[in-house]
């Protein structure tokens, strides 16, 4: 049962990163790709109706962690205090920038809002990467199940590397989205950016392999012990190759789907490599949190699974309904979420 909840958690986080990832990516490239007022309007209008629905998945993922593994929730959130508070403020800043730009016609106001939105989105993509990097690297958990990681310790070389990778992957994701959905020069520029970022993805992915091995051997060993788990890294590599092929063929819609699968493969690999750890201690230290010592009681997990399944089915049904009615006459905005969710 704890394994089921681990998978659910990985699923929720992946859905969140795939969905919010493209609007974060669009944000991270906002003032670079969209060069005049009309293009900025176009870029924000594309993600305007969906971004906050996508963020609900973050809240829901938080809910799964809290329900399933309260001890990990408590340890991770208190230990990564600064990182999380900054993430919160960035989330607020980004939402405000995006929504408030329509509140005034004044060009200075719009530039200010666009800049806040751009910088906060880029910083968020980076911080999510830093957080993931620190989880993979492991945290200095003490015997009481808590730890403290001040802000500048979070920004260690491995965290920074994964942070940079996160920024690049989500920017490429956002660029693919824009290339598929935008029109005119914006789409062309986004396509070129997506192709350049693809090389950065490849380069960083290759550069990551050895550092990841050196901070966590067990990740690689787990793939050796359970070869079926190699599905995820293979999926990631295949999706990366497919992305390149589709981009060459200028099939941007499929390129975006390949980018979604690339993220699924990456996060799936991370989850499969960490399992059964949920918040590992730094390599060589004791007291790591695993799905067994951090989980809720059996009854909570069993009942939770029942209503959770019902709730998620309902949620997906609402989303399909909404996308159908909200975008029925605006096909260019019928974003690919429903297929991804389904």
């Amino acid at each position: 049962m704890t394994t089921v909840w681990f998978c659910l958690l990985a699923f929720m986080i992946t859905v969140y990163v795939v969905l919010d990832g493209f609007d974060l990516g669009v944000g991270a490239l906002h003032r670079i790709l969209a060069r005049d007022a009309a293009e900025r309007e176009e870029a924000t209008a594309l993600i305007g109706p969906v971004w906050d629905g996508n963020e609900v998945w973050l809240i829901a993922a938080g809910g799964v962690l809290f329900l399933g593994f309260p001890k990990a929730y408590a340890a991770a959130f208190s230990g990564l205090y600064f990182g999380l508070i900054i993430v919160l403020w960035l989330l607020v800043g980004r939402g405000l920038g995006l929504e408030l730009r329509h509140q005034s016609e004044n060009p200075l106001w719009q530039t200010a809002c666009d800049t806040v939105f751009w910088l906060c989105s880029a910083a968020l993509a980076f911080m999510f990467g830093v957080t993931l990097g620190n989880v993979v690297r492991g945290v200095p958990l003490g015997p009481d199940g808590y730890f403290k990681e001040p802000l500048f310790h979070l920004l260690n070389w491995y965290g920074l590397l994964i942070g940079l990778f996160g920024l690049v992957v989500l920017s490429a994701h956002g660029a693919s989205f824009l290339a598929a959905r935008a029109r005119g020069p914006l789409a062309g520029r986004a396509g070129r950016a997506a192709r350049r970022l693809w090389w950065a993805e490849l380069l960083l992915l290759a550069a990551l392999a050895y550092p990841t091995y050196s901070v966590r051997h067990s990740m690689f060993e787990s793939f050796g012990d359970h070869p079926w788990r190699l599905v995820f890294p293979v999926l990631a590599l295949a999706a990366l190759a497919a992305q390149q092929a589709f981009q060459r063929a200028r099939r941007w819609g499929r390129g975006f789907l390949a980018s979604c699968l690339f993220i699924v493969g990456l996060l799936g690999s991370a989850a499969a490599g960490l399992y059964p750890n949920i918040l590992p201690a730094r390599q060589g230290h004791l007291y790591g949190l695993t799905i067994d010592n951090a989980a809720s009681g059996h009854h909570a997990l069993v009942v939770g699974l029942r209503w959770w399944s019902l709730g998620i089915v309902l949620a997906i049904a609402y989303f399909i309904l909404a996308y159908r009615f909200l975008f029925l006459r605006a096909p260019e905005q019928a974003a690919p979420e429903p297929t991804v969710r389904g």
Partner: protein
Amino acid sequence: MSSHVTVDRWQFTLTVMVHYVFPIITMGLALFIVWLETVSFVGSERRRLPLLRKSPQERAAHHDAAHFWAKIFAVNFGFGVVTGIPLEFQFGTNWAGFSNFAGGVIGQTLAMEGVFAFFAESVFIGVFLWARDRVGPRLHWASAVMVWVGSWISGFFIIATNAWMQHPVAYTMKGGRAQLDSFWGLLTNPWIGWQYAHNMGGAAISGAFLLAAGGAFYTLLGRHLQFGRICLTAGVVGALIFSALQIFPTGDGQARQLARYQPSSFAAAEALFHTEKGAPLVIIGNPNTQQRTLESAIEMPHFLSFLTSHRWNATLRGLDTIPTDRWPSSVPLVYYAYHIMIGLGTLLLLVALLAVLMLRRGRLFASRAMLWALMLAFPFTMIANLAGWTVAETGRQPWVVYNLQLTSAGASPEGSVPAGTGIFSLLGFAGLYVLLGLLYVFMQARIVSKGPDTGDSGTISTSPEPAGAR
């Protein structure tokens, strides 16, 4: 209490108080939006029920009014989400001890809020605001109902979570952590009933007074007169009904429940320092915790005993039966918050009663004094709601989970989140929320100055709406 706990408490106090302003408005308004849309949807000239006997023009006006309030709703919903995420995060960041201790139980209700309420609310407010011409009147009406249901379900899960903290049930202790034994036991906690009814009643009162305030504002200005009449009528009638229900039975039930399950909280709220037979009901007075007396008090003899147990001479437990270190951390705070809530509730009932009498005599729309009073009454409903929550949360102290976990044990360990770190983020939140408050006023003022659309009920703006209009 060591200082990092104090900082954590202040930060939670600030963030939860700012947050709760918005759900009061969304839960209250959703109810009245459904009412206006229902009149517009099922009303007809041939209906027997006078409430629904409406001409097509009146039905369109009801729809326009609902749409105006839905725009206000959307802004509040967005701010509610933005200020709500920090609360979920803080359970982990600042209250790690509590999350670790209680997550096995209340993780259920909090996660249920996410999947059953947020998705529904966020999707259907979008359908309601932007897709009217695409979904047809039936589904449009249904989406208004879903928004209301979603917001009230959300309230239910939050109350169920809080009820467990006030009166823990359905758990066993295992390795220092509470584990759920019975899911239904958690959802049928006896504490939920009165607290939910009283809390939602408070939101409905705010919604009603907000409607009346909007109606009064445009009537006083001499603009949008039909909108003003519709909102004033629905607002004052709703205000009277819900204000009356708030005192009896829900307020009464909630107070008696408090006396039964949380005697320390009840005694602090009533400033009952000494166990008394035939205890008086305090109308006004200043509690003195050192002397354990109530200074310059005006009291109604025996009334408290009667209200609490329906016997004039019943004995009520005072704070003297409780060790001092288990008293609420601030008795005067609990006492004043409680009396402010009750005092405002009573005054608001009188305002609503007077307004309904004037409405019946046909004098409400012309009485500038009454319209001014209605316009200014709304903020006081918010104070009453927040004061009520202050009673619930400070009355429970020094416990975060009553009789199970002390608040000081619920905070994150000092080693992880020291006081200085907490002060940094507290100041950051304070600054951010000042900015949010300014932006909120700016956005609402734009909607209000534009006023309700009239006449063209078919066209609905497709421009992106303010934050959170999902």
